[in-house]
């Protein structure tokens, strides 16, 4: 036991002495949560729009008041012609426009139907469709307001209920994503780099000549990353509960256990990388392309996996972060227990064992 304790102590000396790196490793999750929580968001708020009200009657006024009152839209300007509208779109001043034709109120009153036009800047298709959805919803609201006291022949009301995330907060989606990303970065990158650094400095040879067994070296390298990861998980969870109001609905021990499992998988991957290369730069490059990009793109955090072409869906299955992300989402947001996520857990466990075995084998071969 003595050798491994001496080794772990040494690793902590390295870690604590390099303040800059430590600050990055501990600060990264906090910065990411803050950036995702407050700056990067795909919720659409206060979009600038233009209105062209050619009717200027009571109904059109009250519809526009409702639009203005919603937190989604700011009426940037009122225009009187399509050419003005177009120029506003071109200059990027507005993202959407509402056109209310002449005789809006009259048409409603006499023909019981009127049309309004919604024009959106679809150069960003997601924002455009979100905005038009909001606009249609406001129009529907307005319509039910004015038909309150009139009986319509047939109506179907859709009642919407957003399960697990009634306020449609983006945080419910990105907190699990950030957890997967941070753990992956810290564990894979840090582990790979600390091992490769020993090779670069020439200290690895001394270690291999010493009676330390290769697996004890690997274990000693893994423990500081593991500790750091647990600290990071804790800080992410604290921030999400107390700052972003994202609750931990499921069992906290289960969530932590799954995080440790994912951490070990990433550690194993880092060790495998370090056994395959001798330079810190290469290790960093492999970690980023081999783990970071797939995590970002194929875990389902940024882009829904169901929408991907079939081959990519297949590829996403070998990305550990995909499974971890699903587990965290299910446990944290939906509050399910192990009986609902045992499959994902098993897959992660299998990946961990496989990667660890490969890493140990590769490490030994390098010794011969």
């Amino acid at each position, binding site marked *: 036991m*003595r*050798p491994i*304790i*001496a*080794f772990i*102590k*040494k690793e902590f*000396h*390295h870690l604590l*002495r*390099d303040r800059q790196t430590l600050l990055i490793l501990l600060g990264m999750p906090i910065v990411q949560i803050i950036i995702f929580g407050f700056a990067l968001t795909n919720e659409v708020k206060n979009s600038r729009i233009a209105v062209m009200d050619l009717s200027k009657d009571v109904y059109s006024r009250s519809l526009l008041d409702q639009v203005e009152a919603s937190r989604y839209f700011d009426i940037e300007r009122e225009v009187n012609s399509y050419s003005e509208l177009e120029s506003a779109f071109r200059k990027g001043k507005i993202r959407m426009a509402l056109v209310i034709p002449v005789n809006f109120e009259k048409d409603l009153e006499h023909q019981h139907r009127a049309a309004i036009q919604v024009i959106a800047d679809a150069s960003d298709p997601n924002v455009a469709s979100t905005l038009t959805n909001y606009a249609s919803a406001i129009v529907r609201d307005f319509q039910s307001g004015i038909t309150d006291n009139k009986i319509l022949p047939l109506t179907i009301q859709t009642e919407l209920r957003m399960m697990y995330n009634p306020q449609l907060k983006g945080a419910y989606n990105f907190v699990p994503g950030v957890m997967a990303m941070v753990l992956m970065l810290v564990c894979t990158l840090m582990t790979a780099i600390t091992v490769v650094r020993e090779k670069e*400095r*020439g*200290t690895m*040879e*001394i*270690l*291999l*000549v*010493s*009676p*330390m067994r290769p697996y004890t070296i690997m274990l000693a390298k893994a423990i500081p990353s593991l500790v750091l990861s647990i600290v990071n998980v804790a800080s992410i969870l604290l921030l999400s509960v107390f700052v972003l109001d994202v609750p931990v609905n499921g069992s906290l021990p289960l969530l932590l256990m799954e995080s440790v499992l994912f951490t070990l998988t990433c550690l194993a991957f880092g060790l495998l990388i370090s056994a395959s290369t001798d330079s810190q730069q290469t290790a960093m490059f492999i970690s980023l392309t081999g783990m970071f990009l797939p995590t970002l793109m194929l875990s389902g955090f940024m882009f829904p996996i169901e929408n991907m072409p079939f081959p990519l869906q297949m590829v996403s299955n070998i990305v550990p972060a995909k499974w971890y992300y699903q587990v965290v989402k299910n446990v944290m947001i939906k509050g399910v227990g192990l009986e609902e996520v045992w499959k994902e857990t098993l897959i992660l466990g299998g990946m961990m064992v496989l990667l660890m075995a490969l890493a140990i084998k590769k490490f030994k071969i390098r*010794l*011969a």
Partner: protein
Amino acid sequence: MQEGNVIEVEDLTKRFGDFTAVDKISFAVKQGEIFGFLGANGAGKTTAMRMLIGLSKPSSGEAKVAGFDVYRENEQIKNNIGYMSQKFSLYEDLTVKENIRFYAGIYGKSDQFIKEKTSIILKQLHMEEQANNLVVSLPLGWKQKLAFSVAVFHEPRIVFLDEPTGGVDPVTRREFWQMIYKAADKGITVFVTTHYMDEAEYCHRVSIMVDGRIEALDNPAALKKRFNARNMEEVFLKLARGAKRAE
């Protein structure tokens, strides 16, 4: 294994594909001896040494280190040797004391042993005041002396030194060799590769490798006599002139 020998090598060979880096070398080293392992760059001396310390597997031949077989008893060998590599091998972001503690720790030494011996060594090196300084702040000569002390800290039977004095000034080199003598006096066998020929004079016995083979092996005086040379430099040049491998 013959009485008094700590290293015995018989026809030891290492091939990398078609290239024979070490070609059937045989020699023996006695307990407490300072054994110089000389050769031009590329002659195969580092490869030979790496086979003895278990970093590289021999292609054929026999070798015993501290009485243990290099093929089968690697772990026992590791417990009995110390090693100082060509590359500077201390952790620069750790303090002098932390380095000593770490290396002693991975050899499983007790806290008591480490504590007592650390203060002895710091005193010998006149580095008591630097004990808590980062190694990066020390001059190169000090680092090398400290690295040697660390390599013999766990009191191994044999210490392997791979060009330990590269880039060190002459005064420090002399001090370094005084440390080597002290270690040999205590019964530690010293196996040292070098390409400083004046250092070869300090060794009890010297082997000179050319193109993967040992071309000469004797004490410096006998070698000088045999090659009719004034110093080891001449001996070496006469032998190395026949080398076919480019540097």
